[in-house]
């Protein structure tokens, strides 16, 4: 029984990670719906709860961001799917360190439980946002939920850092040492390249977050002052005894925080390439370029963190430097997008549900990515920083693109999990409603942000300024968000009913070339590239990677 729970089988662990993400996304979505409802009807009491107080709203914002970024977007595309298919895709039987893998998963579960428990302590969950800037997050008296709730948040994320560290060690060792004979670097599926870059980023940056969390926890409980400046007064009490710097937290956090968002989106980029090749039945002509772009984005992503800090009090010269690196990172991203668009330009697309979601990923990536250069210019960011324009940007490029890549992966690898196919019609309806509702939710936020509406506002009308002019847009956003959430019920229904009664899938239902679709007991030796579509071989019009070398060579 213990073996069943604490299994070291990577496929089961991958499925478990996906279940964890599913739970987290359900909670996170519920929180966001409560946020949206409160924003447009602030004085309407919620059933069982009453009217949301301002600090309740901020707690919702904080926990929504934390859950979604850590437990959905860092977990599902990387740990979830990689555990499911990475070993198969490189021709390995198992991960390099299966027990480490299992330990990482259970640490992630512990982190999730600790985080959720923050709702149930006195004064509730923390309210300083997922970025928890000190001194607000360093002083318990600064707001409701900043006491026990903040401590639990810190412990939870600290444990999550340890989990990510172990998980990335395992993944890197696996990719480096467990490839089967013939699986050279240029024969790896693009998903493996993406997981490689993501693992390196994870390894490097989560330790920095852990260090920052240790320092913040120390400020809160051990009397140090890493982040709290001298003479800081909160609620009439002087709490700053030593001379700390709040900007130090911003640097440490964003050094982690920016690569984190690439960690969230890179696996989706690798999956998009694979799916586009699969469903256009074409090889990827710029394979080396695409892989190099993934590596370049990962590397450059370590040098751009200051673009979250243009108006934070950082040296303006540093602002220029970060602006230049950020504008530079648009280059590999654009090359990648052009590569995809080119790959799609040969016509004859097989528009199955996984392909549709991959196309949706591309659409959101373009939409959100295009607003990146605007925010990278400090002169413009000094208007747009912390407005809803930024919210629109990252929800489109990270959240929606990331979530659509997760959906693509689920629809695509469902036959591997269950031996059945998910219902195509339901899948297509799910896709279209989600696409339209997602744009309906996040596109108008560009306009409300341009109108100057700041983030984290629990209501639109204040004592002096009122954003009531944008109330119609806000209502539209709320209705779209409700529709978007409702569409996911379709997905859940499809998932559950297809698992039981779905159409049985043949082996390799998508006629893919990558090794996770190989039949049982194939000779573990690879002679072909990962995307040999449109190359006739015998009766088939493509060469799967597990096919032995042709005798005519």
């Amino acid at each position, binding site marked *: 029984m213990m073996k069943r729970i604490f299994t070291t089988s990577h496929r089961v662990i991958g499925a478990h990670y996906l279940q964890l993400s599913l739970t987290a996304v359900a909670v996170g979505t519920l929180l966001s719906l409560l946020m949206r409802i409160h924003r447009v009807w602030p004085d309407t009491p919620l059933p069982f709860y009453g009217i949301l107080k301002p600090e309740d709203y901020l707690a919702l914002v904080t926990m929504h961001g934390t859950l979604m970024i850590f437990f959905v977007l860092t977990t599902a595309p990387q740990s979830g799917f990689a555990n499911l298919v990475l070993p198969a895709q490189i021709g390995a039987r198992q991960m390099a360190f299966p027990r480490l893998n299992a330990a990482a998963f259970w640490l992630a579960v512990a982190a999730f439980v600790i985080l959720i428990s923050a709702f149930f302590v006195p004064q509730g969950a923390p309210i300083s946002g997922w970025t928890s800037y000190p001194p607000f997050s360093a002083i318990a008296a600064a707001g409701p939920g900043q006491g026990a709730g903040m401590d639990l948040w810190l412990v939870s994320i600290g444990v999550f850092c340890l989990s990510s560290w172990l998980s990335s060690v395992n993944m890197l*060792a696996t990719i480096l040492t467990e490839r089967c004979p013939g699986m050279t670097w240029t024969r790896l599926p693009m998903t493996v390249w993406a997981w490689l870059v993501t693992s390196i980023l994870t*390894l*490097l940056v989560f330790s920095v977050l852990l260090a920052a969390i240790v320092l913040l926890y120390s400020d809160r409980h051990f009397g140090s002052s890493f982040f709290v400046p001298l003479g800081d007064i909160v609620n009439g009490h002087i709490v700053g005894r030593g*001379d700390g*710097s709040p900007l*130090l937290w911003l640097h440490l956090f964003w*050094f982690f925080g920016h690569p984190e968002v690439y960690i969230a989106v890179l696996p989706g980029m690798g999956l998009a390439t694979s799916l586009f090749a699969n469903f256009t039945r074409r090889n990827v002509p710029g394979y080396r370029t695409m892989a190099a772009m993934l590596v370049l984005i990962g590397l450059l992503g370590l040098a751009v963190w200051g673009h979250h800090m243009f108006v934070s009090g950082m040296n303006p010269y540093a602002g220029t430097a970060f602006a230049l690196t950020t504008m530079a990172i648009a280059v590999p991203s654009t090359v990648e997008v052009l590569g995809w668009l080119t790959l799609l330009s040969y016509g004859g697309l097989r528009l199955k549900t996984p392909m549709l979601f991959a196309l949706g990923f591309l659409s959101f990536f373009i939409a959100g990515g295009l607003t990146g250069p605007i925010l990278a210019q400090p002169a413009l960011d000094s208007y747009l920083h912390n407005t809803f324009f930024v919210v629109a940007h990252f929800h489109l490029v990270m959240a929606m693109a990331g979530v659509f890549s997760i959906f693509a992966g689920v629809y695509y690898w469902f036959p591997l999990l269950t031996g059945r196919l998910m219902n195509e019609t339901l899948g297509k309806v799910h896709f279209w409603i989600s696409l339209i509702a997602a744009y309906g939710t996040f596109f108008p936020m560009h306009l409300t942000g341009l109108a100057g509406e700041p983030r984290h506002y629990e209501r639109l009308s204040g004592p002096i300024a009122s954003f009531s002019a944008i109330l119609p847009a806000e209502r539209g956003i709320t209705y779209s968000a409700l529709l978007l959430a409702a569409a996911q019920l379709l997905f859940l229904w499809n998932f559950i009913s297809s698992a039981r009664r779905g159409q049985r899938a043949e082996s390799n239902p998508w006629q893919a070339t990558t090794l996770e679709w190989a039949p049982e007991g194939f000779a573990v030796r690879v002679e072909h590239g990962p995307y040999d579509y449109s190359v006739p071989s015998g009766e088939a019009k493509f060469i799967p990677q597990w096919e032995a070398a042709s005798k005519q060579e």
Partner: protein
Amino acid sequence: MPATFTRHPVEIERKDTGIGGKPPLDRRPTGGGGDGDNWDNRPSGRRGPRELLSRYRLGVIFALAGDLMFFVALVSAFFVRQSAGHFDARENYVSDWHPLAVPPILWINTAILLLSSITAEMARRQLFREIDVMEEWLGLGRPAVKRAAPWLIATVVLGSLFLVGQWIAWDQLVVAGFRFDSPDPSSHFFYLITGTHGLHLVLGILGLVGALIGLFTLRRIELRQIVVDCTAWYWHTMGVFWIFLFALLVLFQ
């Protein structure tokens, strides 16, 4: 290439392709059998006697890389904090950093830690002597274990001595008035740096004890090699980290 290198014309092995005609030439000057020399081109599990060890070493290296980033973050904070200051009434930039004098016992501790690295390395090397491995394989007892165990115990003792020495240094600082929660940032960093390093050493000592137990309980010599080897590399790395951190505290305040 050195001038003494000469290419021997070796008997080049030709592979049969199965379709007749001339097989491709294998032009490697050192001969070798087909693709077997390429480590990566062998299936997992058949890549040689050190395959498992290499994999575990790689894992340890990656884990330590992550750990390095943790210390890099602390050290960056350290440097940033040192450069903090304020402008006084005459617009002069006055540094707010008051360097903390490092208690002299830290020098002794450093020497002890370096010594413990030596004993750890001695222990590690005992596991890799070919003769001992052969003797064990032939069933003639476990000489490697008997030779390595005392060195491991010595490392544990020295490591514990180091930790005791650090604790004494902390005591001395508290007596001199520099506690962790003093307002002075240099004390924060001193305790933080020595404290986190000390915590890593505690984990290292637990690892060494685990390696010791593993030496006696594990059946396969391969696994014993891995356990001692990886623990020893972790220990060395903590020693190297300490040298950097110590140099930082002594020279860069």
